[in-house]
Each structure stands twice: as C-alpha cells, then as structure tokens.
C-alpha cells in the first residue's frame, strides 16, 4: 500500500502551492497515472481523503487521468499500444522493451477555491 505515501507526496506539493497562493483551499487535485506506474487507482481513492485531513486539501476531489502504455518496436520503427503483459509488436511479433509512455506518475493540476 504505497499509495498512501504517493497521495501524501502529491498533497504535500499541492498544499505548498496553495499556501503560496495566499492559503486558498484546494477544490480538485488531478493526477496523471500511467498503466505502468505501479499504483492501484482504487487504493489512491481510498488513501486520498485520509491524507487530506487537516490540510488545505480537506474535502477536495481527486481526479485521475489514466495514461495507456505506448511502446516502440525498434525493428519496425513503429509505435504501438500493447495488449496484456507481453508487449509484442502487432506487425512482427517481437516483444518490445522500449516504453514510450505509461510510466507517468504526475501531479498534473490543482483547482483552488
């Protein structure tokens, strides 16, 4: 359950910004989560209100933007969206280790009241 520490890190950064902006309350916090980020969205939802308690983010809404995996097949020189755990190129069948996107774990945006 490292989602608690991930939520806490995101809320910490968001609250620091909100304080900088004159202590306005946070209404929405948006995270961008890659399918390969190693986090479970449900666990984030669960942890979020707990780590917000007693901060400028208390009562705010968490919104997740999911980023699918894209890889590059080097032999074919083409990008593709893999299906399943083996990232086999749909043209040549060779599994790819070149992950172009899908590892994102980013604080994207906040809305201040």
């Amino acid at each position, binding site marked *: *359950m*490292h989602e608690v*520490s*991930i939520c806490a*890190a*995101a809320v910490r*950064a*968001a609250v620091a*910004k909100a304080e900088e*902006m004159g202590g*306005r309350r946070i*209404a929405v916090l948006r*995270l961008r989560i890659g399918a*390969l*980020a*190693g*986090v479970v969205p449900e666990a984030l939802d669960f942890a979020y209100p707990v780590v917000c308690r007693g901060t400028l983010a208390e009562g705010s809404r968490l919104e997740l933007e999911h980023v699918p995996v894209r890889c590059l097949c080097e032999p074919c020189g083409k990008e593709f969206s893999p299906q399943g*755990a*083996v990232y*086999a190129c749909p043209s040549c069948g*060779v*599994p*790819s*280790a070149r*992950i172009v996107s899908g590892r994102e*774990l*980013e*604080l*994207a*945006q*906040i*809305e*201040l*009241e």
Partner: protein
Amino acid sequence: MEDRLIVDFAQAVLAENDRMAAALRAEFDRRGLFCVNVLSSPGAGKTALLERTLADLAGQIPTGVLVGDLATDHDAARLRGKGARVVQVTTDGYCHLEANMVRAGLDALGLDGLRLLIVENVGNLVCPASHDLGEHARVVLFSVTEGEDKPLKYPTLFKTADLVLVSKIDLAEAVEFRREEALAAVYGVAPQAEVLEVSAKTGSGLEHWYAWLRERLQPRV
C-alpha cells in the same frame, strides 16, 4: 465556481525521491561504487543468495549491504560475519524502501573503501517498482516454487529488471518446474533483462551471477 484558480504542475509525484536517488547515484559514481537493488516476493531467496555471495566474494570485492525489512533484523543478522559491512534499514511497516531510507542507512554503513553496494529491498513485487534508490541495476528474483507465470502476474516490476535470477533451481525437478515456459514468460515480459538460473543452496549458476557483478564494477578511483 467562476473565481476558481487553475494551477498546472506536470511534475513527478515522487520528484523528491527521484532527486535524492539521483544524488545517491552521483555519489556512487564519484566513489567508483556499483550499486544493485535486489527485489523479489518474500521468500524467493534474496538473503540466501546474498549470504552465499558475501561468503564467496569475501576478500575479493569490498562490499556493503543495506537490508530493508518491515520490522526485524533477522536478515541482517544472517548476513553479518561474512566479511561485508551490513546495515539493517527498518521501514516501520512501509512496504518498500525509499531513497531517504537508503540515505540514512548509508550514513550508518559508511561508503569509504567499498566497490559494491547491495540493497536487499523489502519482499514485495509491486511497490518497490516506482521507487528509484539510486541503484545502477535492478535484480529481480523469482523461485521455481512460485510458478512459471510470475513475470506475467507482475509485469510492472519485471519490466524494470536488468537481470532476472530464477532462484532455487535445485528444487526444479521436485516441483516439476516448466523451465521453457518460465524463460518464455521472462523474455516476453522483460526482453531487456538478462536471465540466469541459480541455486544459493548448491551454488549452481552462481559463477555467472558473480561474472555479471564483476563486469559492472566501476574502475577503482
């Protein structure tokens, strides 16, 4: 609603951890030290592999070990007295190591004179994947008793591996381990990784593991 203020970030949530990990890696490079992060499910044989490795490499490669554990120092106790410096990092219930815990552990360990630093992560195939500890390479173990499809079940971590060790190979026959199926799963999920089959018990395959480590040692500074 009208006066809501939108602030864009686009920053890594784990930016603090990433920064500290990068600083650790820079320090390892400055000291000519190769650092490896060892990961697996609980019980796959990390500590047994390291016990044997420390004993076999004693007097050859000055080595330090940081052992992450939820609460106990049993693993560190198993690794002491084999010629390496060993420090236990208790994570107090955290399911993975973070760069700041490694930093604190290193202050206790001391890096002077070391050429190899091994970090035994907390037994977990999920959470450690997202936390850079400043290592140069990741080694992921899975034992023949865990099932041939382990890489297919935990692709996120296996996709970050530089080396996959199929451990407890001495038990392969007893558990009717389907070797081809397991190697195909590793190759499919982690084509970037090298794969070695080892036994900490009989020593089978360990010469290749040691060669892998030696090839990666940095020139003495």
